[in-house]
């Protein structure tokens, strides 16, 4: 029933958008404006060092992480406070993931993986604040995160196993005739990993935020009928809260899976 209502609302919103869009000058929906990188202190030149809204929201992410993990745990309570139990939950969640997925010998990578997870999850949730800027919606950011993982995995694999790391691409359980073909496929999939790793995160976050903006534009244009878009915004927002966590989780667990290849390359 709720689902049906949602689809009806969606259809109405789309139809109304099609009907009203050309006539109303006010209905100029710019769903991508929220992603614009702007200098914080005016000016129109963005050099590599210019403090921008990217800088501001990354700073907020750092502050949030300090607040949760450092200040939250400052009491060192045997019986934890609320913030401390959340910090412990995050710690246990990622630690167990690294241990279970990658193996006990991967614990030395734990601070690195925890850094990735905490950054992505805080950036995603900060991005859900209205009027905020979502750093993880940019391919530049997620591509660097993915490339860091890719480079770490590749270097670790070669350092630990040398040329044997290439055995990852040589599927020794397959028939000999198939192995070169499989090797090519494995090689391609290995290099496609960072691409999918990066686009999955940025794409999900960007799409959700853009949809929210589109519905918000409809809500502004519809006036009295705005309850439908507002309902849709609420639903999409709830979904986005879920996506914010799930995408951080997916990114992290994939990092663990890729690291497992580097530490234990046996196929």
């Amino acid at each position, binding site marked *: 029933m709720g689902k049906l209502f949602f689809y009806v609302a969606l259809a109405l919103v789309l139809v109304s958008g099609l009907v009203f869009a050309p006539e109303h000058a006010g209905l100029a929906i710019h769903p991508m404006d929220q992603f614009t990188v702007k200098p914080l202190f005016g000016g129109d030149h963005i050099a590599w060092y210019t403090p921008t809204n990217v800088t501001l929201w990354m700073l907020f992410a750092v502050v949030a*992480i300090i607040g949760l*993990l450092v200040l939250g745990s400052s009491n060192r309570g045997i019986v934890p406070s609320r913030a401390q139990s959340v910090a412990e939950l995050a710690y246990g969640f990622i630690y167990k993931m690294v241990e279970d997925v990658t193996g006990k010998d991967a614990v030395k990578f734990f601070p690195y993986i925890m*850094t990735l997870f905490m950054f992505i999850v805080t950036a995603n949730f900060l991005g859900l604040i209205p009027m905020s800027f979502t750093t993880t919606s940019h391919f530049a950011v997620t591509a*660097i995160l993915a490339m860091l993982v890719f480079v770490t995995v590749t270097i670790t694999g070669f350092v630990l196993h040398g040329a044997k790391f290439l055995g990852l691409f040589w599927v020794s359980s397959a028939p000999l005739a198939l192995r070169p073909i499989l090797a090519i496929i494995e090689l391609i999939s290995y290099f496609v990993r960072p691409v999918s790793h990066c686009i999955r995160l940025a794409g999900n976050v960007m799409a959700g935020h853009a949809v929210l903006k589109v519905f918000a534009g409809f809500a502004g244009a519809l006036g009295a009928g705005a309850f439908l878009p507002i309902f849709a915004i609420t639903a999409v927002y709830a979904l986005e809260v879920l996506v914010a966590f799930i995408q951080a989780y997916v990114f992290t667990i994939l990092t663990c899976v890729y690291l497992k290849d580097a530490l234990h390359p046996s196929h």
Partner: protein
Amino acid sequence: MASNTHDAGHGAAEAAHGSSGMPQLDFSTYGNQIFWLLVTLVVIYLILSRVALPRIAAILNERQGTITNDLAAAEDLKAKAVEAENAYNKALADARAEAQRIAAETRAEIQAEVDEAIAKADEEISAKAAESEKAIAEIRATALESVKVVATDTASALVTALGGKDDADAVAAAVAKRTEG
């Protein structure tokens, strides 16, 4: 290059024209984003690896240690409780045995006293009985004597009354003769 960036940004605001409407594909901002991202990641990594993670690990270890200690202490106390219960049961059994011993002893003592008292009483009773027998014998002897006197007197009186001569010797002899028989 820089003016291009801004044209693209404002262009998106005015009217979407093609892929330039997507700030994600505005490559002129990449250097800026990557620089600040790397700064952020290094800062987060340093905070986590130097401060937050060791502290949380220490807290978790400490809690684990506390729980283990508490469990050990509980185990210890439980053992102590079992020990105390055993000691209590043993003390109870000892006390019961002691009580029984005391009761038996007391009973024996009382029995001895009672026996002694009975023996004493028997002795007293037999002494009294002997005494009484002696008294009775005396009384009987006295009575026999009295019978002689009364018989003599009566005989004398009878003789006198019948007009005979009161011969004391003859009367005495007759009474003696009679009472002997």
